[in-house]
Structures are given as structure tokens and as C-alpha cells.
């Protein structure tokens, strides 16, 4: 039991094991070929990059419900800079991140200055950003809700390879989609920061007991603000990757991703109450998610079952996490 409390990601790894066995038994064998695995990892990566940010923020005791809308609005900023203003790719990327940093900062300042729950503040941002995306898209396209022509606008840029296409295609057949590499890199960075740095210690403390942390000299507000910004930057990264991949952006980009990211983080062992969680867990939680979404298409099972699966898994994860938390705090039930 002590081991469990120290390793919150064990639940997610166990879950991944169960899901893999399930699909090994029910799915077509092609799911477990290199191409099939990449099919699973692509949506897992898009979600996982968000889940790393959302997970760290949850550990620090805050939510960001606006990340899905942030993906949409960042996607609009990115595509409009390229298509409408004809700016080069590096400038568009820079602008997109600059927007994300300010939006994250704004969320953070409202939450931290007013002391209101981040849940409600970022719920407002969710609607504001989604609405602004729609309005902005219509303005940029003169009435449409889809902005096309991103690939043509980018043309050839040395930066393109970093954000789109497949890497190592020469080494083996399908190559690895760059988003998967970004996912691994972002998750590794997040996991490292949480487990091995002073900032990670402060993150755990800020979510565990903000007051006690403050009394011990932890700059709680700064820690939370940095994590709000980091989460927004994760959303911007996903926006850039997916817009380049699709060659266009639309009003539904990132729709409901905030919930999926939180679900992945919870499956990964993050507590909704903060102070406890794992980025390695969120990493595996995202892969479970991708597996369920894509895996069902390899089976005879109706795809619409996926939400049932997901809800069931979330339920199990929450019950499990709650049990682990009680063990860790010595709370008797």
C-alpha cells in the first residue's frame, strides 16, 4: 500500500495492461502492427500534450477548463497569421505562443487575485474563447467557420518538419508522427519537473496545502501562474500541430478536450483535490484514451460504446485514487 501511495501512476499502467489485453482478444490483428500503433498514438499524443499541462495544474490544485477553447483560438491565431496576413511560419508560431502566454496569465491573475475557484473562472474563459474563435473565423474568412489554405500559406519552411509529418520515416515503414515525439518530450519534461526539481516540490505543496506551503516560503501564486501559462502553451502546441496536420482550422477544434485531458490526468492518478498525481500516469492515461477511441474501430463493437468505456474507466480511476489518497493520508473510512 505504501508503494501505491508513492507511485500514483501504477493504476494507469495497470489500466493500460487491461485495455491492451481486451483489444488483443477482440480487435483485428492489424491494430498491433506498427501502422496500427501509430494510429492509436496520434490522438493519444494530441490529448496527452494537454493532459501533461492539465495534470501539473491539477497537482497544484487548480483546473483549466478553457484549454479546449484555447486550442481553437490559438489555432485561429496561428492560421489567420499565416493565411490572412501571410506571415512566415516562425512568426505565426511565435505569435500563437505569445497569445497563449497572455491568455494563461489572464486566467491565472483572475483566479489568484480574486481567490475564486479556477473551475468557474476558466469555465467562463471556455465560453469566451470558443465564442471569440467563431467570431474571429467569420471575420477572417468573411462568413465561414473554417479557415483553409494553411499548407499553401506555409509553403516551404525549415520549421515545418518540426511540427508536421512523420519523423524517422526512413528507418521503418510508417515513421513516427512528430506529434508523438512532442508528446513524449512534453511528458518527459513534465514528469521530470514534478518529480525531480524544486519547482515540482512547490507544485505538490501548492496543491496539498497552499497555506502551509506559503508559511514555508513557497511562492504559491507564482507557481500556479507559471502552470496556468504552461497549460496554455500546451494548448498552443496542440493547435499548431493539428492545424498544420489538417491544413485548416475550424470552430470545433479542441472541442471538449478540457474534459478529456482532465480524464486522462485522473486516470493517471491525479487527485481532483490537488497535491497528488503523476505525469507518467497522465502519459499512460492518454494512451489508454487513444487506445479506446481508435481500438474500437478495429473491433466489431459499435464505436459509440467509447463514451461508455471512458466514463466507466473514469469512475474506476476516481474510486481507486480516492482509496490511495485515504491510505496516503492515513484517513480512516
Amino acid at each position, binding site marked *: 500500500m505504501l508503494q501505491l501511495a508513492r507511485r500514483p501512476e501504477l493504476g494507469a499502467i495497470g489500466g493500460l495492461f487491461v485495455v491492451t489485453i481486451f483489444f488483443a482478444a477482440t480487435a483485428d490483428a492489424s491494430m498491433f502492427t506498427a501502422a496500427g500503433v501509430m494510429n492509436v498514438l496520434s490522438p493519444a499524443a494530441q490529448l496527452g500534450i494537454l493532459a501533461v499541462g492539465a495534470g501539473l495544474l491539477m497537482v497544484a490544485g487548480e483546473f483549466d477548463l478553457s484549454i479546449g477553447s484555447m486550442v481553437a483560438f490559438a489555432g485561429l491565431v496561428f492560421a489567420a497569421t499565416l493565411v490572412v496576413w501571410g506571415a512566415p511560419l516562425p512568426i505565426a508560431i511565435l505569435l500563437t505562443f505569445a497569445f497563449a502566454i497572455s491568455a494563461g496569465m489572464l486566467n491565472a491573475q483572475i483566479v489568484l487575485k480574486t481567490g475564486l475557484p479556477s473551475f468557474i473562472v476558466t469555465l467562463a474563459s471556455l465560453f469566451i474563447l470558443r465564442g471569440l474563435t467563431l467570431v474571429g473565423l467569420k471575420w477572417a474568412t468573411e462568413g465561414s467557420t473554417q479557415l483553409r489554405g494553411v499548407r499553401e500559406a506555409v509553403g516551404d519552411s525549415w520549421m515545418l518538419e518540426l511540427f508536421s509529418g512523420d519523423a524517422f520515416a526512413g528507418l521503418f515503414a510508417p515513421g513516427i508522427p512528430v506529434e508523438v515525439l512532442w508528446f513524449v518530450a512534453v511528458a518527459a519534461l513534465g514528469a521530470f519537473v514534478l518529480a525531480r526539481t524544486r519547482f515540482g*516540490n512547490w507544485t505538490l505543496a501548492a496543491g496539498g496545502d497552499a497555506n502551509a506551503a506559503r508559511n514555508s516560503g513557497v511562492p504559491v501564486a507564482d507557481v500556479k501562474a507559471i502552470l496556468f501559462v504552461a497549460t496554455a502553451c500546451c494548448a498552443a502546441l496542440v493547435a499548431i500541430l493539428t492545424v498544420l496536420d489538417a491544413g485548416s482550422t475550424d470552430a470545433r477544434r479542441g472541442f471538449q478536450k478540457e474534459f478529456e485531458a482532465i480524464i486522462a490526468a485522473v486516470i493517471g492518478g491525479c487527485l481532483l483535490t490537488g497535491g497528488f498525481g503523476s505525469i507518467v500516469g497522465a502519459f499512460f492515461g492518454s494512451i489508454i484514451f487513444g487506445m479506446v477511441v481508435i481500438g474500437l474501430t478495429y473491433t466489431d463493437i459499435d464505436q459509440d460504446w467509447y463514451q461508455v468505456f471512458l466514463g466507466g474507466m473514469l469512475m474506476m480511476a476516481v474510486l481507486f485514487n480516492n482509496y490511495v489518497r485515504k491510505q496516503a493520508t492515513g484517513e480512516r473510512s
Partner: protein
Amino acid sequence: MSNIPLLEARDVARNFGSVVSLSGVSLKLFSGEVHCLLGDNGAGKSTLIKILSGVHRPSRGELLVDGEPVSFASPRDALDRGIATVFQDLAMIPLMSVMRNFFLGREPIRRLGPVSLFDSKYAERVTRDEMEKMGIRIRDPHQAVGTLSGGERQCIAIARAVHFGARVLILDEPTSALGVTQTELVLKCIKEVRSRGLGVIFITHNVRHALAVGDRFTVLDRGRTLECRTRDDIGLDELQDLMSGGRLPATA
């Protein structure tokens, strides 16, 4: 034992608006001594320790550290002079490990090229050593503080303050919520700290706890010093009488 007190309060008073919560208290704390601060609720114990620990400033009177007058602008100033206070909430986070709590806000850093790492090997070793010196065997420095008993948590907070250079330790009712065995453990920690030459101010409601470790006893009543006695000079009954707001028997 030197004759200059580590920490001294001279006729310290404090009022909040027109409410007088401390109307002139003097207290001397010597190295290697446990000074018990007793008194009923509202006697001014909290106000006094908040002044000693730099949370409040006195309206009148002065504080001396090593015989020099000082003025604390914040708890940080008091800490810099070696005065550490362990408040009742302990500033500990139940979900975090003992080792992470021990170094919270003062994390040891190991450099690896441009990256700085939380030096968990060092933290682990120091936590284990410091707890062992207090007579507590930590099964595992990675276990969550929440799994430890109340007494053990107090001792971690005490060990932490000592490790980070406290010379004066102010303990705010460390035994108030504890059972018998747990109280023993905390009293043992206090004795250990004293034997290392620190001065301890031990705030308590409980006369027995005070007599078990105290060298000097100050009883506060309604913002004033009611009595200040040394160990040889006072008994259980007498102290109990003073605590309940009574006067000393006629013999005094």
C-alpha cells in the same frame, strides 16, 4: 550556561486598537533550558509568542537577543536570528513525503550542467539522520506525512527547525491534541533539543506536561505575568492553582 539570556522580553505590551491583550510581560530564556509558558485561554500566550516570533510588533517594551535589543519586521527576521516557531498547523502537507516536507521551501539543489535537481539522496539521508537523533526511526523517508502519528509529525517539525539552525524554539501547544504515548514522544524530543543547548519556549495548558520537562515556568493571566518560578521552587498543586487563575497560597 551563560548569564546572558538567548532571548529576553522586557515589559512587553501589545494592544489591538483599544483592546489590551498583553499589558507588560517579561520573560528570560536561557540556553539549554525549557521555559514553560502557561495560562488559561485569553491570558495572552498567543500574543506573546507572536511578538517573539516576529508576527506582531510590541506596542511597548523591548526584545533582546543575546543581550542586544532587536526589532523584528517579519517572522523571517526572527528566523534569521535563530528564533523558530512551530505553530499548531505545523506547516506540513499530509500528502507529501516526510523528506519533501522536511525540506519544503528550502530544497537542497544538485546541479547537473544547466539543470538544477532536487537532491533527493541528500534530503533522504538528512531526514533520516535528523529524525534518528530525535529518537524516531522513520521506516521510509518517502512515506506520506499523513500516515504518521500526531506526535511524530510534531517531532518532524521540531527536527526541521533545529536542522535549519534554530537556537530558540517556540512550540505552540505541541501536546494539546495528543494521547499519552504521543505526548511522551514529543516531550522526549523537547528534552533532546534542550540537551543540544537550544532554548525552548513550551506553551501548554497542561501542568503535568509542563512539569515533565520544564526548567522555568511563567504563568500568564489576563495579559500580565502572574508568576515566574524555577523548577525547584514550585510543585504540581501550586502550578495548578496558578493556572486556574487563583492566587498563590498564603505561604508564598
